């Protein structure tokens, strides 16, 4: 069957983009591959982080806003302490507010007492291995309020980057199928190899829960 110019052009760009998107994503793939291995092998001694974490507790006087609305208080406290990060686990009572401010590898649990205007900050900081692990899972998603999304612009940027990497990897997969299809006679085992991969992945995603 003759190849039309359009198909030729699509094949050309498919191959070119496969090469260059792959190279563009190189460091991201290494980061997520290595941190994924760390997450799946918490027993690896060289990468232990929890025992090595640094913990500090500090108290700071805080100027509270006139209206004790949790969003206003948190915004003011974060600004006065000069910190930034993803805010989560907010618990407000009549006398106080508790919340957590997180960046990968560095978390702060804050307790603001409205009666004496003091903010108690319990911070923990991980080593490089801990930072890598938390970076892998850092997306600002709340298990209790999944619709809320991230509340720190850096988290939003990171989430967008992760989406982009995921879409890039999706493209690399599909483009590899197209590239193989072009040389399927030369690499005849490709059908079997791809079939095995599809069967394995399909079993876990679609079939396993039915058996």
């Amino acid at each position: 069957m003759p190849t039309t110019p359009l198909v030729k052009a699509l094949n050309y760009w498919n191959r070119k983009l496969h090469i260059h998107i792959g190279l563009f994503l190189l460091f991201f793939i290494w980061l997520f591959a290595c941190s994924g291995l760390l997450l799946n092998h918490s027993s690896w001694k060289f990468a232990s982080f929890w025992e090595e974490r640094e913990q500090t507790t500090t108290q700071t006087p805080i100027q509270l806003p006139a209206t004790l609305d949790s969003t206003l208080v948190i915004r003011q406290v974060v600004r006065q302490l000069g910190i930034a990060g993803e805010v989560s686990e907010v618990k407000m009572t009549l006398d106080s507010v508790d919340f957590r401010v997180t960046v990968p590898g560095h978390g702060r649990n804050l307790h603001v007492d409205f009666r004496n205007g003091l903010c108690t900050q319990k911070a923990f900081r991980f080593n490089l291995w801990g930072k890598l692990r938390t970076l892998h899972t850092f997306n600002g998603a709340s298990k209790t309020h999944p619709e809320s999304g991230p509340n720190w612009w850096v988290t939003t940027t990171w989430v967008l980057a992760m989406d982009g990497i995921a879409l890039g990897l999706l493209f690399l997969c599909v483009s590899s199928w197209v590239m193989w299809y072009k040389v399927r006679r030369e690499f005849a085992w490709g059908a079997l190899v791809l079939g095995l991969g599809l069967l394995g992945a399909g079993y876990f995603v679609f079939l396993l829960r039915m058996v």
Partner: protein
Amino acid sequence: MKKYYPLVRTLHLYFGLFISPFVLIFSVSVLVFNHAGFLDRLTPVKALPVEKIKLDGIPRDTSDLLTAKAIIAKLGIEGEIDFISINEDHISFPVLKPGLRTKIEVDTRTDSVRISRQEEGSLRATSYLHTMPGQHNARLRGNSIFLKIWKLMADGVVYLLLLLTASGIFLWWCLKVERRLGLAAIALGVLLFSALLLLIF
């Protein structure tokens, strides 16, 4: 270097084809994690009818895990026991399969069992697989055959992916015509990567 090109190309092609469906699972699950609210609106989790069963005695074993395994064996349920919550008169634990969450609640005074199921769907199945085996409950994790196999698969996929990046660099370097643009792509990637890390840390 050229003499290795055919071998590296063959390995890159076959390994790449084999792991591509698994890479799809990991990629799709990233979108599922990052847009959980959207997914909930698109395909809500479906609660299936609750079953209540009375057992002829609760099988007790030497550990909580073995007891829980004996209970699900008696009930004819298979899956990964996620965690176990136990007190004087109750044992409860979720039994998970990708896309299906079954909660078993046993009243040890009456030997009655409440089984509730949630059909989570294929997209959430990918996110479950992405997080498994993971860093939590390491002592319990891998108590089902499927997760033992998945653990090996997940590790294998990552190692092969790392190998693919190395072989990909080799293959690209052999293509002289693509070198300049490739270097620009790497530089751009490094720039974005560094900028994001600087922003976060």
